């Protein structure tokens, strides 16, 4: 791997995934300064990782795996071991306060982020990837969960999020 290639992969990843990684960092970390720090940690880990990238998987899979794993380490380090509610264990996600549909988009984003913080790490990763519009197959490849498990979790997410935010803007077909 030449340094030129490493930079090229990094630029390409930045062009495609910088917004998704910013959203991931802000969803995993409530504190603004720490979220920006986490975002930069992910950028740097990605840059270093591209020295090892030989096309073993799709660029998207690589980027999401590195990003989500750095975020998971951040969660572990922060030791936020407050009780979590798994998507598999419940039909109803933890209450986020008001049950009404958010009128302001900022409020809806904040509530979605809070929901992500209340989920166990793997469920949070599934939810984030689904919100980004990734297919069940791609989510399975990134997380290492079986496709069936991902499909089940997405189904539960859809139900829970429809209750919280109304029906999705787009009825995705789970592949």
């Amino acid at each position: 791997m030449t340094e030129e290639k490493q930079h090229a992969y990094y630029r390409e990843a930045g062009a495609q995934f910088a917004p998704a990684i910013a959203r991931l960092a802000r969803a995993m970390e409530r504190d603004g300064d720490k979220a920006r720090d986490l975002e930069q940690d992910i950028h740097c880990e990605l840059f270093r990782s591209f020295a090892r990238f030989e096309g073993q998987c799709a660029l998207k899979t690589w980027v999401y795996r590195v990003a989500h794993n750095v975020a998971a380490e951040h969660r572990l380090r922060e030791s936020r071991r407050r009780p979590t509610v798994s998507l598999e264990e419940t039909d109803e996600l933890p209450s986020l306060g008001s049950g009404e549909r958010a009128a302001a988009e900022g409020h809806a984003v904040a509530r979605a982020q809070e929901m992500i913080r209340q989920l166990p790490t793997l469920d949070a990763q599934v939810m984030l990837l689904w919100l980004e519009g990734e297919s069940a197959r791609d989510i399975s490849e990134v997380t290492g969960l079986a496709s069936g498990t991902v499909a089940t979790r997405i189904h539960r997410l859809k139900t829970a999020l429809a209750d919280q935010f109304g029906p999705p803007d787009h009825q995705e077909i789970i592949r």
Partner: protein
Amino acid sequence: MTQAPFNFWTRENSDANFSEPGACRARSTRFEKSIRRRNLLEYAAGALVVVVFGALAVFFAGEGEWALSATVAMTVAAAIFVVSKLHRDGSAQARSPEASCKDHLRSQLVRQRDLLRGVPTWYLAPFVPGLVGFYLGVTANVAEVQGWAAALEGVWFKFVATAAFFVFVGWLNLHTARKLDREIAALDRA
């Protein structure tokens, strides 16, 4: 990519960019930095134990108190063992952040669990011979002058308090390790 289910989500941070690669060259992640910070604190504490107890060992040897000197030297040896163990097993592991999320999370949890589970044996136990020997030596010295009853009366509470502290630290670490075990089991079921 399929279409995102909620546009309010994907509209956020749409103007975000990556950091310049130059800013990344020397930067460690917060996770790695926190592990290094923790290890440095442990090294500093270990160095303090070595210096203070090493000086005590020399002092007791100078006074002809060979038994006490040996027990204090055991504590120095224990501190050196613990710090070297921490350096070998507790430093940031070789990173493979491109592994699947499930595998990566599991390896992090297993590593933490194993380290915590071993605390009674690799962190606490090495200090026990030196501490017990020290209490015995001091008690024997007092007993020579005041008798065993008075000597034991003066030492039993301190000894029990030290033992209770060790038991508590061991229990706390094993309790956290058991919680991590449950998290690992949940991951394996996923």
